[in-house]
């Protein structure tokens, strides 16, 4: 009896290997290894570097919160935090509004529907650096096509100082980011719109709902889960934007468009202050985490998804 209930060790091992849990673990192993190597380790290293005075070419020693202490008293850092939040907020709202609008239009029965849908994706498909270079010319202090056209029309006398004036520069980089980000939102929301069963809309129509009511009470609630996902991604992309700023202004004029990502690079790589650069990058994490948690909990709540309140 007892000899039967306790199998020899080798058999136990085989049993365990054949159990569902073990198979599951085995299957997860490659993914876990991949994540640890390429996500956890670099992230951990970045966080660690933020606590050291590492410089390029020198591993540095642990200095606790000194980098953060310096950043706390650094007006340029706070400018970049303000810029990043401002940039993300305005650009995301604009991208969402325009993207949703575009998705709704594309969801209608238009002639050449597929053609338009393909065209809309173009800004998203063009490599960021290329479109940024195009915008660089569009916003040039001397050769801007916008300034030139307005001058030809006689509306202005001198070229607009797009990237030289702090306010103009902020508006200009946001405009470029919005132009580039709309397609992603529009196409994703369009996909979401197409999953909404037409019968729901028909039922609402039969009940006498106006088109605004149909949009507010049927379309929008059905679309909420996908909006949450899409906007999370959009906010993350915008918050960590780098290429656009680096090409257009390098953070100028006088740091008016420096984002945390560009400042982190400027100090970390060309400036050689790896530790401080890492600290700036780490300072982005709370913001990103907040955005992710917001959407994560938003996604979990069916009430939210259905447009209700808690």
């Amino acid at each position, binding site marked *: 009896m007892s000899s039967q209930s306790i199998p020899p060790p080798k058999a136990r091992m085989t049993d365990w290997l054949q159990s569902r849990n073990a198979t599951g673990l085995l299957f997860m192993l490659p993914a876990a290894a991949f994540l640890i190597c390429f996500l956890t380790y670099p992230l951990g290293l970045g966080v660690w570097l933020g606590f050291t005075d590492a410089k390029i070419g020198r591993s540095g020693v642990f200095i606790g919160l000194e980098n953060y202490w310096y950043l706390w008293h650094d007006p340029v850092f706070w400018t970049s935090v303000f810029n990043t939040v401002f940039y993300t907020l305005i650009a995301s709202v604009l991208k969402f509004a325009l993207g949703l609008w575009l998705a709704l239009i594309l969801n209608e029965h238009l002639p050449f529907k597929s053609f338009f849908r393909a065209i809309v994706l173009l800004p998203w498909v063009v490599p960021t650096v290329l479109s940024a270079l195009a915008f660089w010319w569009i916003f040039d202090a001397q050769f801007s096509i916008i300034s030139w056209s307005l001058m030809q029309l006689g509306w202005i006398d001198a070229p607009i100082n797009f990237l030289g004036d702090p306010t103009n520069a902020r508006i200009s980089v946001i405009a470029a980011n919005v132009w580039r980000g709309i397609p992603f939102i529009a196409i994703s929301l369009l996909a979401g719109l197409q999953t909404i069963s037409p019968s729901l809309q028909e039922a609402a129509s039969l009940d006498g709902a106006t088109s605004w009511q149909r949009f507010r009470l049927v379309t929008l609630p059905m679309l909420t889960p996908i909006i949450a996902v899409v906007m999370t991604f959009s906010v993350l992309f915008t918050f960590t934007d780098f290429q656009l700023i680096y090409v257009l202004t390098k953070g100028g*004029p006088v740091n008016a468009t420096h984002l945390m990502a560009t400042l982190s690079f400027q100090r970390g790589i*060309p*400036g050689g202050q790896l530790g401080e650069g890492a600290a700036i990058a780490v300072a982005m994490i709370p913001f990103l985490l907040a955005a992710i948690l917001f959407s994560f909990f938003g996604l979990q709540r069916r009430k939210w998804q259905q447009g209700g309140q808690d």
Partner: protein
Amino acid sequence: MTLNRRHFLASSAGLVAAAGFGGLGTNRAFAQNAPVYKPEEGASLRLLRWVPFVAGEEAAWLENTRKFTEATGVQVRIDKESWEDVRPKAAVAANIGSGPDMVMSWFDDPQQYPDKLVDLTELGEYLGSAHGGWYPGLEGYAKRDGKFIALPLCAIGNAIVYRDSHMKAAGFNEFPKDTAGFLELCKALQAKGTPAGFPHGKAVGDGNNYAHWLLWSHGGKMIDEGGNVVLNSPETLAAVRYAQELYKTFIPGTESWQDVNNNRAFLAGQVSLTANGVSVYYAAIKDPAMKEIAEDMRSVNLPIGPVGESVELHQASTLSIFKHTKYPEAAKAYLQFMYQADNMNDWIEGASAYCCQPLKAFASNPVWTSNPIHEAYAKASASLRPNGYAGPLGTASAATMADYVLVDMFATAVTGQMSPEDAIAQAERRALRYYRV
């Protein structure tokens, strides 16, 4: 070809002896006072360099390299990186101890990882004594604690380029030599609708050149010899006030200018005066449509300020060898070969005035007199001051410049975002952070 080869053999006897007949054990007899480096068995080298600005410069460098390979059998692979990417690439190579064997880098890069570089004192001192001495500014970039950790390669000269006819139309027959007269010229140019323009934006090269000239020409400096931040001084205030006056005469939008904007504006006839490398001239003569601009173009050194001498930053490049190289002797032999009179002269000539000689003996290179526009660029190495003057070079000086502390100081003041006093105080604060002990 035969002549060249013979010539080359004569001038590099020591090296060839080492390479070709090294086995005979007669190196010392040939070498005299030139150091002899015998490339290791089966050596091959990798050089990381910046992407050339002038095709002729690269051609001359490659030709010299080819001759070196022919003489020694050592293959040299040359990797090119855009000039802003050389710094991080080289720093990472130094950090992890692999990658290229040698690097042609910028400014104070070697000073950021001096202990990862091969000591080149023997070669540096020999070259200095053989060719009339190094220019002190360039030497400053390459030396640490009295030792050469790199060899100065060149200064990429910066000079004012202007339209002669526009200057004359503004009532000036001769280009003003001092900062006061220069301001008058810029005012007159603006009045004629042909303004000047210097970058106040994040222009790594041109922006820093302009900002450092403003500061230094008025006697201001970021750091003193002891490494203390001494930016907040009456001289700096005078420099900022001067910049404010000058800025009023500029074409609008210079605070957004990056490195290429001034070239573009000049070549399009939008500005009549700016400062740049000689490349702007070559861009003009290449294009038949710009014939008029090219013929009207003149170059001159930046005016002398209250400090009383010509002082500029320019761009400086050095060559260094990483300690991780498996073939340090081959690398030294390569550098020695590149600095041989014929080879160095060929290279300087190939660079068409873009690269100014590191050693005084090469000042007689015919390139400087071949075209009047080259003349101003001939003095680059002489007027060059290292960034972070007059303090020690290293991570602090590099970081201060990379963080655009000086560029931002002038830009905030000239655009009126801050008073000159506040702009200086802020720049001082930022500099102090990098120069903290």
